[in-house]
């Protein structure tokens, strides 16, 4: 009995030693590689050098939130932001409502006779949760205009609620093309849609990055599906494979395996950063050396924060304007929030300005403000705003961005 116990003890010690030894051997192998190969994502020979742009041309006589400073309006008028304040992709929402907040603050500071309120409603960016906050907002009589909703799925789910109450809402960021095909008269889009972004992204991958083989991965959101379809059409024969992931997915090993076997030069990911960042990271960890191209939904510093060094292979396409290159906006945003403007901050600011200028002109009821936005035709800080009958802008630009030293920097217009 005693002897057997000692024997057991010995066996167990051997087993634990073996565990340590195996772990040790394997980690040693890897760590050596890591020290010689760096992050494994350093520029390969084929990487195209795309210089960052440091200035963009923007309209000279933009309408600003401050207006002429003489606006008079009744008290209690309110603009609302409805969209993600929390949730997996919250940062995109935060970028937007900061832009809106800045516009309203500038307006109220300049116009003592017209103080506009600001309310925020949180959807978590989730189509299944968005109807509650939207219903609540449309039933608050003091709300005359809305900035939102930021994402395509939630916009699709709630467009009818706005339509029923005749409440104008301008999305600063939802890019699914079908959103303007629902016959809604209250929906306006403050940027280009994915039937512009998709082909521009395909052209960017093939012509600019010189990728002969592109692998397309989409998520299961309305946004991802629409964008993937638009991009697929543009890629034609350069598309070597496609796959789907789901919202909330954390493990991408099966997709990564397929991509490693297909050996593409670039992967285009149609989805948001919450899945895009870990996906890129797992791709690079498996030894992928090509480019990772994400759309506007992935273009945020959170992508870099979550993917780490792996993100140095990332490029982004976005029908949004780099607000950080508009000096007056950058300075004001930075002093207000102690942050650089993010993706869609300038769009949030500009569309809020459109609504504020209407209020200043006495359009203080829902129907009046809706009519005002319909016939709007003026420059914003980032671009010209004039909507067609469906609520789309004419000739929106798509910008390209790259990751440079842990920051997302614009590389200029890649398509119109």
């Amino acid at each position: 009995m005693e002897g057997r116990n000692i024997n057991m003890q010995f066996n167990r010690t051997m087993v634990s030693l073996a565990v340590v030894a195996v772990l040790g051997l394997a980690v040693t192998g890897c760590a050596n590689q890591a020290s010689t190969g760096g992050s494994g994502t350093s520029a390969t020979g084929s990487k195209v050098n795309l210089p960052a742009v440091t200035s963009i041309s923007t309209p000279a006589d933009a309408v600003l939130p401050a207006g002429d400073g003489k606006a008079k309006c009744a008290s209690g008028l309110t603009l609302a932001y409805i969209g993600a304040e929390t949730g997996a992709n919250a940062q995109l929402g935060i970028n937007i409502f900061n832009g809106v907040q800045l516009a309203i603050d500038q307006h109220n500071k300049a116009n003592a006779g017209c103080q506009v309120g600001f309310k925020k409603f949180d959807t978590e960016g989730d189509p299944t949760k968005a109807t509650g906050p939207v219903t609540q907002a449309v039933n608050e009589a003091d709300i005359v205009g809305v900035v939102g909703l930021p994402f395509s799925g939630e916009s699709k789910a709630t467009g009818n609620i706005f339509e029923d109450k005749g409440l104008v809402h301008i999305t600063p960021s939802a890019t699914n093309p079908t959103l303007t095909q629902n016959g809604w008269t209250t929906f306006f889009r403050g940027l280009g849609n994915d039937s512009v972004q998709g082909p521009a992204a395909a052209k960017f991958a093939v012509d600019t990055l010189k990728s002969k083989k592109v692998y397309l991965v989409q998520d299961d959101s309305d946004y991802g599906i629409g964008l993937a379809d638009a991009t697929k059409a543009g890629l034609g024969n350069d598309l070597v494979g496609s796959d789907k992931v789901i919202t909330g997915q954390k493990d991408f090993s099966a997709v990564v395996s397929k991509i490693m076997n297909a050996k593409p030069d670039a992967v285009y990911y149609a989805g948001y950063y919450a899945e895009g960042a870990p996906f890129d990271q797992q791709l690079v960890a498996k030894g992928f050396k090509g480019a990772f191209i994400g759309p506007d939904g992935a273009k945020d510093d959170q992508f870099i924060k979550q993917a780490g060094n792996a993100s140095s292979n990332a490029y982004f396409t976005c029908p949004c304007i780099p607000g950080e290159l508009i000096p007056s906006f950058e300075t004001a945003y930075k002093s207000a929030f102690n942050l650089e403007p993010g993706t869609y901050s300038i769009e949030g600011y500009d569309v809020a300005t459109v609504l504020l200028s209407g209020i200043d002109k006495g359009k203080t009821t829902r129907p009046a403000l809706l009519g005002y936005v319909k016939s709007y035709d003026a420059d914003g800080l980032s671009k010209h705003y004039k909507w067609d009958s469906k609520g789309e802008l004419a000739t929106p630009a798509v910008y390209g961005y790259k990751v440079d030293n842990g920051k997302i920097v614009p590389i200029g217009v890649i398509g119109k």
Partner: protein
Amino acid sequence: MDDSWISFDIPSLMQNFWSATFDGLTFGAIYGLVALGYTLVYGVLNLINFAHSEVFIIGCYGVVFTLTSLGFGPNVPTLGPLAIIGDLLLALIVGMIASAVTALALERVAYRPLRKRNAPRLAFLITAIGASFAIQYGIFLVRGASPEPAVTMFQPTPIFDVFGTIVDSQQIIIVIAAIILMVATDQFIRRSRTGRGIRAVAQDPDTATLMGVDRERIIMTTFVIGGLLAGAGALFYVMKVPSGVFYAGGFVLGIKAFAAAVLGGIGNVRGALLGGLLLGLIGNYGQILLGNSQWTDVVAFVVLVLVLLLKPTGILGTSMGRARA
């Protein structure tokens, strides 16, 4: 694929067969480690401890907090190999302890009071589900909905090549370490005095008590062993899925591990290993065969349903006590 709701992509499965196999085994090994916790507790108490998935996720938090405080992050660490091994071992120990303490607390707070008043089995089941949600949303309150920042432990390197598919160091570490842990557990249950106690209680609790086995102590030990293994599984899971740690992150993995335990034969220690590896493989093959990631979980649950329909006792049978008395 776009027209019909389901399609079978056989060329893709042929092309990706080996990578699906190696990834499947890697996940299977993790499922196996977690499945042991379900199996051991079921063997001893005839209780399906649904909160075991939370025992696992607490271990993940232990691992992530340890590594984050040691300076690990999304970037590949620049430390030397020995320092990395040391840090990983520390994270392993913290993860195992965190999970074991959770499992033990669960036993004490949720199950023991029920046992004392001879509650019906349904009460145990509902309590288990309740405990699972309580822990999940407890984490949610403290850490919010966002996942913890990714933790990269090391850059996996190719070790060898099978028919053109690279097997990397990460896969080898996970599979070998997990199998060693599981074999060690099996040997412990088979040979040690405590193991004999566990088997005795599993076989016939009353007689075991009459023979001088301290049943309460054996139950506690069983929960602790299950917790330790889940904590080890947590380290490997974070190694494989660096950004997978959030409040509900253990839930699906827990159900898959439970499916693995049932597949191998719940209550059967070797069955958990076999079931885990098989389920990992089936899930990965199914996912690639059916075309996209939306199917991984579905395949695992279909397997669970089929096993329950066709062979409820699982592949190796359900008895821990009788099999090797």
